[in-house]
């Protein structure tokens, strides 16, 4: 039998980008928290290296055992057998979770992202909404989330330049962003001749090219050093603690309050509930032993696939189809972000982008969101375009050949000798919407070593995203040519889009209507009132930017709501 532990106020499942943030405001409010995390503390000396094979080829920071055992399966239709999805940097088990190894691009979503249905209908008519899409307005506006974006930017530390300071537009920042109450806590990461080349190419086209916002210190911040620009940030951890993962920011602060107990290397297997439909705590396995951690409130904050899987696995009398799933919404509205670096360019000169960080970049937002007139284009939304530093040698050697050389032999050697340091890709991130034909459930064949089914992704073809992407690819080419590129290579994605993603969202969507959403506007279940859900899984549409800062702002807001309504929620 499971060992029964002493009850706590809040059990948090997963101590990553979202769970690692929510514990700080809760601990400061004096609530006693048990955080249960499947990974452990990573050691900057042992676990983080300036080594492409370690980080990117073998993915030894991210490819931790639990993740490898739970790779979701994938199919494009319900009548097709599911196969194992391509492994990637998706889930992560460690204190700090994915914020350990992410690029740390820390964006606010655009005000438009929160009201896509209303704004599209108003400007283009209801017929402009893509067929088969289940998109809704978010149950909150940008303005309601703004104070929490601000709090998180200052608590973890984000470098960048405001483009809209309380309504005052500044072309050095993102002129399309929603109004922010104050400047970023730090200036952008270092300008370089390459970032200047790309920003000035954007200006030539009358576009707004600005620096990426990054949760990386551009100067010493709250006792942690500035970035050393060593070029092994992506899919690796920071050897200096200059990347502001929750493992070096909010979690240590929460630990200091003495209100947070961390149970590491502990895998949650079920969230339990009583006959009245309230959750009672979580069951987990640690060192081969099974434990039960009773809690007055449970906050589920693992990755998108595991959030859905744990709810579907946690069946009870009150929830025969899975916890918080009496309306059949768990797993619906799943979105794998349409992002990728599939437009590459060749320049006739060295770019020297070997060093730095992925977040040391330049971004154009003119062709994202509703920042341009879509009349007659046949799609809504668009993509942000980023070019950035941090090129690794194996990746550089595998560069596209632009029909200029064979793929091996002495001619190839000559080609890479001249050109490996002269190529760059545009990272395009598309607005991505939920569809009827794209969802998560439990696989019927593949199980993890504990005997529980893994998550199954079903992702059907789309029209809107490929059109938006093709449109923006042409803009990316214009930008690269304006900067002096002599060759362009474009490799578009399949119409089903990506399957497994490191920007995977949905499955426990947030919305006012319990018939179509799993959690309310605060992130608490419509069905189990003392169950909160955090992470990308609550988001109903994916903006044209990296999701983490929005996930973190929603986490802080959920904590704020819980503290203010503790008596009503915890009973």
């Amino acid at each position: 039998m499971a060992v029964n532990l002493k009850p706590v106020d809040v059990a948090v499942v997963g101590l990553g980008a979202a769970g690692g943030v929510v514990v700080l405001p809760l601990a400061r409010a004096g609530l006693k928290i048990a955080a249960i995390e499947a990974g452990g503390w990573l050691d900057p000396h042992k676990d983080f290296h300036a080594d492409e094979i370690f980080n990117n080829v073998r993915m030894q920071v991210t490819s931790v055992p639990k993740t490898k055992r739970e790779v979701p399966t994938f199919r494009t239709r319900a009548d097709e057998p599911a196969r194992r999805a391509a492994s990637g940097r998706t889930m992560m088990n460690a204190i700090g979770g994915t914020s350990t190894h992410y690029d740390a691009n820390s964006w606010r979503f655009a005000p438009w992202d929160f009201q896509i249905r209303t704004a599209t209908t108003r400007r283009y008519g209801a017929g402009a909404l893509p067929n088969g899409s289940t998109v809704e307005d978010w149950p909150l506006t940008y303005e309601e989330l703004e104070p929490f974006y601000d709090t998180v930017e200052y608590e973890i530390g984000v470098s960048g330049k405001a483009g809209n300071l309380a309504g005052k537009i500044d072309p050095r920042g993102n002129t399309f962003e929603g109004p922010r109450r104050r400047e970023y806590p730090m200036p952008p990461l270092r300008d370089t001749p390459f970032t200047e080349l790309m920003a000035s190419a954007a200006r030539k086209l009358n576009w707004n090219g600005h620096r990426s916002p990054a949760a990386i210190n551009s100067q010493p911040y709250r006792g942690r050093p500035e970035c050393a620009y060593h070029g092994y940030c992506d899919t690796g951890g920071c050897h200096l603690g200059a990347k502001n993962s929750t493992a070096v920011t909010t979690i240590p602060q929460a630990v200091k309050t003495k209100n947070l107990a961390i149970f590491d290397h502990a895998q949650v297997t079920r969230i339990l509930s009583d006959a009245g439909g309230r959750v009672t705590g979580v069951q987990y396995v640690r060192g081969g032993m099974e434990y039960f951690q009773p809690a007055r409130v449970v906050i589920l904050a693992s990755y998108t696939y595991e959030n859905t899987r744990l709810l579907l696995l946690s069946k009870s009398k009150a929830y025969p189809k899975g916890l918080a799933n009496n309306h059949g919404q768990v797993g619906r509205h799943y979105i794998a972000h349409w992002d990728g670096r599939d437009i590459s360019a060749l320049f006739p000169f060295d770019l020297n982008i070997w060093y730095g960080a992925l977040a040391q970049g330049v971004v154009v937002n003119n062709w994202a969101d509703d920042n341009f007139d879509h009349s007659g284009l046949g799609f809504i939304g668009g993509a942000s375009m980023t070019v950035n530093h941090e090129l690794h040698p194996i990746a550089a050697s595998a560069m596209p050949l632009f029909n200029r050389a064979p793929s091996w032999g002495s001619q190839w050697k000559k080609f890479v000798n001249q050109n490996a340091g002269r190529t760059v890709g545009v990272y395009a991130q598309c607005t991505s919407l939920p569809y009827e034909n794209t969802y998560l459930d439990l696989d019927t064949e593949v199980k993890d070593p504990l005997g529980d089914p893994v998550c199954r992704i079903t992702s059907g073809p789309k029209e809107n995203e490929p059109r938006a992407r093709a449109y923006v690819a042409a803009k990316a080419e214009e930008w690269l040519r304006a900067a002096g590129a002599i060759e362009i290579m474009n490799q578009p994605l399949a119409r089903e889009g990506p399957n497994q993603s490191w920007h995977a969202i949905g499955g426990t969507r947030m919305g006012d209507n319990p018939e179509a959403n799993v959690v309310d506007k605060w992130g608490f279940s419509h069905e189990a009132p003392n169950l909160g859900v955090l992470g990308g899984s609550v988001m109903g549409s994916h903006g044209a930017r990296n999701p983490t800062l929005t996930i973190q702002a929603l986490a802080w807001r959920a904590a704020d709501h819980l503290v203010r309504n503790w008596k009503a929620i915890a009973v």
Partner: protein
Amino acid sequence: MSETDHEISRRELIVSSAFVPLAALTASAQNAETALTPAQIKTLAAFVERLIPGDELGPSAAEAGAHVYIDRALAGPNAGEKQAFVEGLASLDAFAKSSQDAAFADLPPEKRDALIAAMERGTAAGFTNAPQFFSRLRRLTLEGMFGDPYYGGNRNFAGWDLIRYPGPRLAVSADEQRMDKLPAPNRRSAYGPQYGR
């Protein structure tokens, strides 16, 4: 747990596979074990030597030890693909014998080049999955040639010199991010000066 009402019965837990410590994974990176037989290594070396040949731009992938990287990888983190890889090498040799009447490694460079080209194009008679095996071999050769010499390849920094990568540095100055002047190559492994020499 009498207050809870749930469907889970007590389950058998697979304790041994529950958590593999990260240290066990990282240790595998540095093992110098071998996965291939001397004959297989000879075939592999004869292949990588033509993929990236020695010329005025520097040493071949074989001189740089790309095949050593691949062999060690197959003995450790890439063990899952070892069987398919060994079968691929056997198919390569069978193809060489049927078309040129000699083992692949015993053929002169031009003949090896012709066989590799046929593999890449998918015109290697009787060699099923030749383009896929070519593409996997090419990818692993790039990893061996351009990865950190800690793993057995990129000897003498031949790969990094070839593509003019200036080498890992723990801190990089603004001057080292200039476009008009690349930093001088530091010819150093991320794991210390004992690797790559």
